[in-house]
């Protein structure tokens, strides 16, 4: 028997109540992700991307439907059981970072590894590696408030990867980055992907999405497209250099 998908949602629905008015944010999503896949989720603002990944990480409760992780049903878990699951196998990067304000950058990144039972030395080495890869080695002793938005965002990614989670959920991890920092993040994600970790990432950035194995598009809380990024369908005569068109 083949292993169960790492993520499987069945008719997943989330309806918020906004002053008595129901706001359907996710409307019947069936999403299967196999272990090791890199999936990008795209879609207009308000299409339900954050809501969906929050539910996959147990950070928001579903209204109806089912969520299965690694073959176990999880939408019925208690908060504390979710906390344990996240600590063991899920890394989460929030759209708005959520760093612990009164801890240094280094401590923010080491904390999840320590909570998961890593030795202080392992946690430190992992932190040094991750901050180094993201060009933040010299910011380790800073407080989050002293960092630029793009730096906080990279710290949030380092924190999410501290545990080598089998599932990385990331909400706009490059939203505040310039192209050089985006390149660092892409390189690190590439490594994480090659190591066999599963990545589900919300992004507006086509550069990021184009590296995924598969792109899922949401519109009004529903999946409207789901498929691999294939080869370019070229017109006859075109060549690789024609990707860039200079006007004459």
């Amino acid at each position, binding site marked *: 028997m083949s292993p169960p998908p790492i993520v499987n949602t069945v008719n997943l629905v989330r309806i918020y109540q906004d002053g008595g008015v129901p706001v359907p944010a996710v409307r019947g999503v069936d999403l299967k992700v196999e272990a090791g896949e890199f999936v990008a989720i795209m879609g207009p603002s308000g299409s339900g991307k954050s809501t969906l990944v929050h539910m996959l990480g147990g950070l928001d409760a579903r209204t109806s439907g089912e969520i299965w992780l690694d073959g176990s049903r999880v939408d019925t878990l208690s908060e504390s059981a979710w906390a344990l699951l996240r600590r063991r196998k899920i890394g989460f990067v929030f759209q708005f970072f959520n760093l612990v304000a009164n801890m240094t950058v280094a401590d923010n990144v080491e904390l999840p590894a320590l909570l998961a039972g890593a030795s202080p030395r392992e946690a430190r080495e992992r932190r040094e590696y991750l901050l180094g890869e993201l060009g933040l080695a010299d910011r380790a002793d800073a407080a989050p408030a002293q960092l630029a938005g793009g730096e906080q965002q990279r710290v949030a990614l380092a924190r999410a990867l501290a545990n080598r989670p089998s599932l990385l959920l990331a909400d706009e991890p490059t939203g505040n980055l310039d192209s050089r920092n985006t390149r660092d993040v892409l390189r690190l994600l590439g490594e994480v992907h090659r190591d066999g970790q599963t990545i589900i990432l919300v992004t507006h950035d*086509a550069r990021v999405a184009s590296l995924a194995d598969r792109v899922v598009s949401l519109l009004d809380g529903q999946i409207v497209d789901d498929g691999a990024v294939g080869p370019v369908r070229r017109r006859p005569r075109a060549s690789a*250099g024609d*990707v860039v068109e200079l006007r004459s």
Partner: protein
Amino acid sequence: MRLSLLALLAKEPAHGYELKQALEQIFGRAYPSPNIGQIYVTLGRLEKDGLVKAVDVEQSNRPNKKVYYLTAKGREALDAWADEPTEGPRVRDEFFMKLVLAPMTGIADRTALINRQRRHYLALMRDLNELAERTDRGDRVALLLIEGAMLHLQADLDWLERCQEDLP
């Protein structure tokens, strides 16, 4: 290509093959490699319009080669080009026509058109990523050209999303 050839000739006189090499060297992999025939055709037209002139240079053991140089009129055209603001990129109007008209006539479904176009943009983006990977870090002109193409693609994709939201 007319004006890039004029600009190169403003630097120094050259023959067709040298111009081809110069373009390739300056713009690197990101530039669609100009074919020599096109270059000679363009030079011929420039000559006819009085913007360049050619002299025959004798070569030992080979046919003469034509070396082109800029005329005063060519210099003026080049100055006018440099002084003018350049047209911005136009939107993909062909796709937009398809998007608006095809569903009305029942030829195609709008969601399917948008999905296909999105996948196409993402595939182009992946090509650009690979092109950037293969390009030498020190080749700034080529890398900037690729980055420019990426930013344009991103804008096309954002606009696609707007179409998806606002067209019924």
